[in-house]
């Protein structure tokens, strides 16, 4: 956890190592997620964050440039925005129930998927059951998002068969 955080700071410096650091960061995140009992999420984060994103970033860097130039304008406004956001979050988060409690609103009032899943769907991995059935429609939306992204990347990057699509005034 701490390591992930410190790496996040290191990353605020520049260069193409950022992409690799991002991969490391994702792996650490996956580790944390396992500690939090979210094995499915951890597996996805490891393959997507550390795998796919990193490869995509490296690919993009190969196609573009690997050096970042120094930002010209002052960092006051971004710092201010980030600071306000952070303050608001801390303010809200500190009033949330403490970590690991069992009798929070989320645990008590939330749906009892654990009890009903095997009975109703016959699937012991409740994450799969919720994903596939109870909230299957979200998953359909998610698949649509992938589909959208796939076609969008196509639209942008596929070489035109005929004339070149270069504009200019």
């Amino acid at each position: 956890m701490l390591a992930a955080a410190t790496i996040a700071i290191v990353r605020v410096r520049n260069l193409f190592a950022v992409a690799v650091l991002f991969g490391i960061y994702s792996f650490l995140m996956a580790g944390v997620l396992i500690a939090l009992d979210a094995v499915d999420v951890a597996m996805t984060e490891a393959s997507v964050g550390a795998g796919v994103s990193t490869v995509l970033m490296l690919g993009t860097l190969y196609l573009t440039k690997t050096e970042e130039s120094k930002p010209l304008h002052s960092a006051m406004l971004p710092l201010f925005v980030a600071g306000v956001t952070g303050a608001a979050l801390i303010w809200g988060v500190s009033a949330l129930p403490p970590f690991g409690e069992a009798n929070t609103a989320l645990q008590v009032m939330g749906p009892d998927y654990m009890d009903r899943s095997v009975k109703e769907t016959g699937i012991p991995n409740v994450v799969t059951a919720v994903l596939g059935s109870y909230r299957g429609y979200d998953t359909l939306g998610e698949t649509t998002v992938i589909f959208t992204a796939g076609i969008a990347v196509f639209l942008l990057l596929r070489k035109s068969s005929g004339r070149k699509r270069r504009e200019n005034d």
Partner: protein
Amino acid sequence: MLQHLPVLQVMVPLFGALVAALSRRPGPSWLVMTAASWIALAISVTLMHQVLTGGVISYHIGGWDPSLGIEYRVDVFSALILVLVSGIAAVSAPFAHRSVASEIPEDRIAWFYTMYLLALTGLLGIAITGDAFNAFVFLEVSSLSSYALIALGRDRRALVAAYQYLILGTIGATFYVIGVGFLYVTTGTLNLGLIGERLAAVESTRPVLTALAFITVGISLKLALFPLHVWLPNAYAYAPSTATVFLAATATKVAIYLFVRYLFTVFGDRFVFAELPIQQVLIVLSVAAIFGAGAVAIFQSDVKRMFAYSSVAQIGYITLGIAIATQTGLTGGIVHVINHGLIKGALFMALGAVALQVRHCHIEELAGLGQKMPLTMSALVVAGLGLIGVPGTVGFISKWYLIVASFEVGWWWLAVLIVASSLLTVVYVGRVVEAVWFREPSEVARGAREAPLSMLIPMWLLAGATVFFGIDANLTAGIAAKAAAALLGSPG
């Protein structure tokens, strides 16, 4: 089959998108797009009818109870937005045929229509869902497809515009998810109705306020509320004409829908407006939007960009109506959602027809086009009058409601400001009208010809609607009033 209409509303465009992607040829994909959007319109009109006669429709996807699964929920307000979105999509379909053929390379047209239908799917999905997280998923479907649509503009600046929109849009969506996370942790549910009920018990604890702040800011980014509007002008100005017509008339409107839904149904207007300074902040920002963006619009030389800034200003009127939060004010805001959709649809269609002839929408190049394209330019003038709010057009109806609402709550200065702001609109619409009708044709304009019928008919359909609903506002304003009453009456 009738009871499945809510889900079919979203599934029809989705299937359309899939078929369009599989067909991969311009002609069939256009047919699919047209068919899907007209069927979607028919479904939304039927839904509206069902809601008006039979009350709120609730549809449980997967057959699960809303506390377990995802619920689709159609009330008057969401039905109104559904009709607007699918209506604009359906009317733009014939328009798209020629416009897209001239602006998009042929091997990408099928995918363009796929994206267009996906954007439609996403927007309809947001307006119909009763689930906070599902709204996020469909928000992303519509956003990702809009980024792609915008990036297809002919100018290379379209790419940068799409990139900026992607960054800000994603920040907005992530803020929204953070807010939903807080709500979920405090209430244990994702169903909007249930969150609303359970919040009554835990009101004004800090996580709820944080959730309110993040959801408000996140959606404000999407609806281009004044200081958060920076992505909008470039995105609209450089996108392909058809994409501009569709997105300008619908995308921000759906974000407004979500905004109103959260303020009134989830958090409850009593909580939001009685205990927090949101009203004051919203009014200040709205007035700033109306005057700031209106003033910037005057100095634009690219007409598409000018009307994009005008959109930011017009959104100010809508949020103003929401901020007044009385029956009349909210009715004004909601009716302006519809009216502005119609006006901007007609305006950008006229500009799309121009783009077919002269390629760029620079005001110098538009000079004298009135002689060459009289029908297109007349539609532009009619819609422009609506934008100003001349009596007999829809713009007047919206402003009338807003002015009456400000008098009702005793803010006469607000009424004065609304009237004064119309002068700004007069100036920039006047600039365009002057150039188009009273100047010698520019070099490019001389070669221009009248737009084809496939463009003129949709354009005049929308322009005609701005006049029709301006004279007889019973239908739009009546439904808007019902929606407003339902929102205000809903238990906090």
